[in-house]
């Protein structure tokens, strides 16, 4: 199917690559189908809605900023995503990119869980964790760049 998007123009979407959200991204109840697209660097992805070409999120691999980032999920929640272990899931966090780059942040409290094998996803809330809803990336940006991200400039 052909999807007209505001960010990527017209996209040819293979229906087999569409991820169904069992629970919505909070506030986006009507948008349950997404595709994952490569982001501008290895630790970023685009989550493009196929219900609306205007809706896209930037996803971050949280381990790129918090290397020991951990998600504990109950059996029920894993089962909802047809998973048996947390390792079956790809875990991302949503990034907010405001005009002021010093306020770029990610939501570590409510990660996006994706089971890419079964094409299922959801946003969960880590009720028992102290991870912040607003984790500012400005301090860690330098650290990420120094890991040798392909697109990153070096100071050399």
């Amino acid at each position, binding site marked *: 199917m052909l999807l007209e998007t505001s960010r990527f123009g017209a996209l040819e979407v293979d229906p087999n690559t569409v991820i169904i959200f069992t629970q919505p991204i909070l506030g986006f109840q009507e948008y349950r189908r997404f595709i994952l697209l490569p982001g501008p660097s290895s630790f970023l992805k685009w989550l493009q809605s196929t219900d609306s070409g205007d809706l896209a999120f930037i996803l971050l691999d949280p381990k790129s900023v918090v290397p020991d980032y951990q998600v504990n999920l109950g059996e029920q929640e894993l089962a909802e995503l047809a998973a048996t272990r947390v390792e079956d899931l790809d875990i991302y966090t949503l990034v907010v990119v405001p005009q002021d780059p010093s306020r770029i942040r990610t939501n570590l409290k409510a990660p996006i869980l994706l089971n890419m094998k079964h094409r299922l996803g959801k946003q969960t809330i880590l009720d028992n964790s102290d991870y912040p809803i*607003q984790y500012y990336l400005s301090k860690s940006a330098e650290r990420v760049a120094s890991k040798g991200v392909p697109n990153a400039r070096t100071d050399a």
Partner: protein
Amino acid sequence: MLVLTRKEEESIMIGDDIEVKVLNLRENQVKIGIIAPKSIPVHRREVYLAIRSENAQAAELASDKSIAELINPPEKK
């Protein structure tokens, strides 16, 4: 708003499968137990609202310039 008075250990049923139970009362705090199907997410309202607001901001398509800042952080002087 429907208002019901309940004592400790008493419940309210919402439909067939949601039970809201008053577990414990203290001067300034009430402990509430909720039994609901797993398909119905239950969250503290202020957390729910904060995450919803953050999600809405995440959905605002950022300018390419800002994204570039994220990928290529400004060089330190």
